[in-house]
C-alpha cells in the first residue's frame, strides 16, 4: 500500500504553473530522493504532501487520507507527517527541550513529563543529549538540523519529508546530518527527501525522482537512475552535480 500517493497533481501560483501533472507513489518503508534544478518545483511538491500548499488539480492521499477531502483534519494529518526544512526552523525563543516537546504537548496532548522523556530520547538518538537546555541560537547549523529531525521524530511520524536538509550547512556539517538520515532510512522509515546529496541517494534510496520545470521527468529505481537515466536533461543534471 502507498504511504504517499500523488496522482496527476497540478498547481498554480496565480497564472504561473509550478507543478504539471505530477504522479508518484511512495510505499511504506520506501526512501525516495527528489532532485532537479533549482526552481523545478521540488519544495512545492513536498510541501503539498502535508498540505502546507494547496493543489488545484489531482489528488494526494497520505496514509489513506485524501488531502483534498474537506473532512480530512489537516492539522491532525500534519502532526503525523514529520517535516525537516532547509533552514532548520527551530523556534528560536524556546530551549531545545521546549522545541522537542511543544508539539507533543500542544498538538498530541501528551503529559509534559512523558513528552520530555520522549523528546530527550530522540535528542540522544541524534547525539545531542548534552544540549537539551540550550537555545537554538547557541548551536551550530548541523546541531540545529539534528534537533529539528529529533523534533519531528518525537511526534512519532508515519513518514518523513526532507527539503534540502543539508544545503544550508557548512560542508563539514553535512555528514553528521546525513548520518542521522541514513540511520532512519535503514530502520525502515518512509522518507521523501529533496536533496542533491547523491552519495546519500546511492546508499539508501530505493527510487530517485528527477524534476524539471514542474514536471516529474524521471521516476526510476536507484540502479536504473544512476545507470542510465532515460532523459537527456537528467543525464545533463547528473553529470553536472557528480563532477563536484
Amino acid at each position, binding site marked *: 500500500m502507498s504511504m504517499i500517493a500523488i496522482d496527476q497533481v497540478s498547481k498554480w501560483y496565480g497564472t504561473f504553473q509550478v507543478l504539471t501533472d505530477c504522479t508518484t507513489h511512495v510505499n511504506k518503508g520506501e526512501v525516495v530522493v527528489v532532485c532537479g534544478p533549482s526552481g523545478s518545483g521540488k519544495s512545492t511538491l513536498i*510541501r503539498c504532501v*502535508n498540505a*502546507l500548499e494547496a493543489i488545484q488539480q489531482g489528488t494526494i492521499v497520505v496514509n489513506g487520507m485524501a488531502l483534498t477531502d474537506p473532512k480530512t483534519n489537516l*492539522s*491532525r*494529518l*500534519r*502532526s*503525523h*507527517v*514529520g*517535516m525537516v*526544512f532547509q*533552514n532548520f*526552523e*527551530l*523556534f*528560536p*525563543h524556546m530551549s531545545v527541550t521546549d522545541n522537542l516537546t*511543544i*508539539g507533543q504537548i*500542544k*498538538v*498530541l496532548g501528551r503529559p509534559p513529563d512523558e513528552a520530555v522523556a520522549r523528546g530527550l530520547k530522540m535528542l540522544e538518538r541524534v547525539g545531542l543529549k548534552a544540549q537539551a537546555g540550550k537555545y537554538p541560537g547557541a548551536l551550530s547549523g548541523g546541531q540545529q538540523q539534528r534537533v529539528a529531525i529529533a*523534533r*519531528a521524530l518525537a*511526534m512519532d511520524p508515519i513518514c518523513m519529508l526532507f527539503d534540502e536538509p543539508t544545503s544550508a550547512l557548512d560542508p563539514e556539517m553535512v555528514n553528521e546530518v546525513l548520518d542521522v538520515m541514513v540511520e532512519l532510512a535503514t530502520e525502515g522509515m518512509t522518507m521523501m527527501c529533496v536533496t542533491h546529496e547523491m552519495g546519500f541517494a546511492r546508499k539508501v534510496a530505493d527510487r530517485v525522482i528527477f524534476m524539471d520545470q514542474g514536471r516529474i521527468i524521471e521516476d526510476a529505481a536507484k540502479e536504473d537512475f544512476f545507470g542510465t537515466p532515460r532523459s537527456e536533461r537528467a543525464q545533463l543534471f547528473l553529470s553536472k552535480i557528480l563532477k563536484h
Partner: protein
Amino acid sequence: MYEFDFSSIPGALPILGAGLLVTLKLTGVAIVVGIVWGTLLALARLSGNRLLGTMAAGYVNLFRAVPLVMVILWFYLIVPTLLKDWAGLGQGTDIRMASALVAFALFESAYYAEIIRAGVRSVPQGQVNAARALGMTYTQTMRLVVLPQALRNMLPLLLTQAIILFQDTSLVYVIGLADFFGAAYKVGDRDGRLVELLLFAGAVYFVLCFGASLLVRRLQKRIAV
C-alpha cells in the same frame, strides 16, 4: 526681573500626586486595552479575510487620520449617552475619566495594531510552516510561535509608543479632567504661580520620559544580541 517662587509646590503635592495617578491610569489602561484590541485588529488585517481585513484597515486609518484631541472630545460627548442607554449608569460614575479611558484605548489600538502587524510580518514564513508542519492550528501557531517572536521584535516600538501616550494624556485638559498636567495647571492658577508649576510639571514629564527611553535603549541592546 521675574522672581521664581516654588513654595506652593510642597503643599500641592497630594493634588499633584492624585493627578499623576490619573495620568498613569489612563496610560496603563490604554496600553493594555490597546495591545489586546490592537493585536486582534492586526490579526484581522493579516488574516487574508477580505471583510475582516477591510473593517480593521478602516478602523486603523480612521483613528490615525483624526487628531487625538477631537477623539477625546467626541467620546466625552458620546460616552455619557451610551452609558445611560446601556447600563443605566451615569449618576455615580466619573464621566470624564470613563470617556477618556475609552477614547485613549480605542485611539491607541490603531497605533498598536500597526506596530503589531509589522512585528508579525517580521517573523519569517518558515517559522509558520514549521509550526503548521507540527500540526499546530492557526491559533496555536500565532499564540505559541509567531506572537512571542513578534513581541520581542517590536518591544522597543511598543515602549516608545507608550512614552508618547504618557505625554499625550495631558490632552484630557480639554474635558477638564485633572491629570498630572491639569492638576499642576489648577494649582498654579489658584496660587498665581503658573510658570513655576508648569516648569515643575515639565521637569517631571522629562525625567520620567527620558528615564523610560534610556531603559528602552538598554533593552534594545540586550535584545539585539
